[in-house]
């Protein structure tokens, strides 16, 4: 039975449902995408009205080791990758451990602790940064006061290495690990009880059950969190911008900070757009590799 008739007028009124989204999609996503690529092929000074076409010139500069832009780009990219490598494993393993912990608590306590570990996710990045700046303040911050009580010397948390990275990673983990925990709690709830019962019948230890039942069951969810956490970490900006200003030196200046600097401080929109596009391509490639790797593993096991 087809109750929705298909006249031309009907098609048109159906199209009206999609039209508002289509308009904003084209105006604020599709056009910027094409325009962004167009800008990256030009020598585009923000203050100048003429923009010279340079083809792949901006991209060539990024990969030519003798240019200033190359060193800026590589420094930012390398710092961003460092942050991804430091933060993602903690966000994944930490999120899973928190989920397992909450899962094994008595039912009455589950909800409370789930909220406690998740609630910091509601805070905005500038609040996170200002709050942690205060906690980590060399002279009057809580951390150094506690260290002093233990008899330890004060640490320059934000202006010396490796503490600047430790601080940024710690603040980020505290902020977002609860998000992964929530996803894992849900995934753990969906592992069928019969699997564990069968495991018990076979005399499996809790450790064996975890490795051979729990982990394989939640693998798709783990892939999802690895990909989303990697993307989120790649987009890091606010924490180093506000907490360390990219310092000490430029050792925590991440790629997004370099791009924003090139665009709005140096006003070189062409080179900044090229940097943004290369960054996006790297992110997409990494996501695809992460999906592929895990799919291959599944293939091998079957």
């Amino acid at each position, binding site marked *: *039975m087809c*109750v*929705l008739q298909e006249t031309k007028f009907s098609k048109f*009124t*159906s199209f009206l449902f*999609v039209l*508002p*989204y289509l308009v*904003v*999609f084209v*105006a*604020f*996503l599709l*056009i*910027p*995408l094409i*325009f962004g690529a167009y*800008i990256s092929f030009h020598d585009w000074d923000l203050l100048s009205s003429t923009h010279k076409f340079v083809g792949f010139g901006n991209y060539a500069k990024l990969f030519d080791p003798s240019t200033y832009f190359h060193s800026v780009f590589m420094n930012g990219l390398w710092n961003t990758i460092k942050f991804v490598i430091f933060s993602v494993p903690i966000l994944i393993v930490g999120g899973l451990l*928190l989920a397992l912990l*909450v899962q*094994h*608590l*008595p039912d009455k*306590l589950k909800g409370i*602790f789930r*909220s406690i*570990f998740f*609630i*910091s996710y*509601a*805070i*905005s*990045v*500038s*609040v996170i*940064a*200002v*709050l*942690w*700046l*205060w*906690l980590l303040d060399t002279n*009057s911050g*809580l951390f150094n006061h506690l260290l002093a009580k233990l008899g330890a010397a004060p640490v320059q948390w934000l202006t010396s290495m490796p503490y600047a990275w430790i601080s940024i990673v710690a603040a980020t983990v505290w902020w977002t690990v609860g*998000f992964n925990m*929530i996803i894992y709690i*849900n995934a753990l709830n969906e592992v069928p009880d019969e699997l564990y019962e069968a495991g018990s019948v076979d005399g499996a230890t809790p450790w064996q059950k975890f490795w051979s039942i729990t982990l394989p069951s939640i693998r*798709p*969810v783990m892939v999802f969190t690895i990909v989303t956490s990697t993307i989120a970490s790649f*987009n890091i900006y*606010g924490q180093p911008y*506000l907490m360390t200003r990219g310092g000490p030196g430029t050792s925590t200046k991440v790629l*997004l900070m370099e*791009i*924003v600097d090139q665009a709005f401080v140096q006003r070189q929109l062409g080179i900044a*757009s090229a940097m*943004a596009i290369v960054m*996006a391509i790297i992110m*997409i490639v990494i*996501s695809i590799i992460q999906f592929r790797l895990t799919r291959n593993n599944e293939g091998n096991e079957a």
Partner: protein
Amino acid sequence: MRKPKKSLILIAVLLGILFLIPMVWMVATSFKTDTEALSSMSLFPKHFTFDNYVYTLFGQGLDVPILRWLFNSLFVGIGGSLLVVMIDAMAAYGLARLNVPFKKFLLPMFINTLMIPWVITFIPLYLQFGNMGWLNTYAALIFPYTANAFGVFLLYQFFRGFPKALEEAAVIDGANKWQVFIRIVLPSAKPMLWTLGIFTFMTIYNDFLWPLVSTNSIELRTITTGIAIMQQGSFVSSYGKLMALTTLATLPMLAIFLVGQRQFIKGITQTGIK
């Protein structure tokens, strides 16, 4: 089996304290005077004061409109969420149920853009908004968030799984598709619409880079970008005032979080995983 449970609870409590300390410290500091904030490590203020809040919101000597910033954030957050929920629900329903021309082309185009990192778009968006004279307007703080296909994808999946019988009954009773959409479909999708609304509000309210780039008038700052200004400006070592400001900025999100946590969690777990 009892013993391991007790040790687990102990671990959970210790970790819980660790997780709560930063926020408790923020609120505790906000009730201290600026001098006490710097000198005392006590959780409870010696001189409990609301002055930081009063000064932050209504301060006479203050040269920035913090109350306005809070209003801006709530306005663009709520306005943007309503807009997103409305246009995404329409598009998702159209694609899931109606005979929309070019459907086979539009749907994959929308969904494929979910893969594209937003970093590509903020520079061209800045130029576009500049050309339209829309920098430093509420439009700049709302419209870029409406293009995200996440909501269309979320609701499309929901509408696909929604039983057709109700809609067909309404059509037989003589309702046209707009009436069906407004009277039957939207009410049934309420939980999903709330989920999308909360997600969108959170994204807009907490966003940092785009509002920083697209506005420079002090009147049009959001609270999230305003905090950065205050931290580097007149509140630089006034930690009592700074913490009052961050507490104020966090309150709307906490309220939404406590009320809408279930919707929010549902939204997280229903997207992209399956």
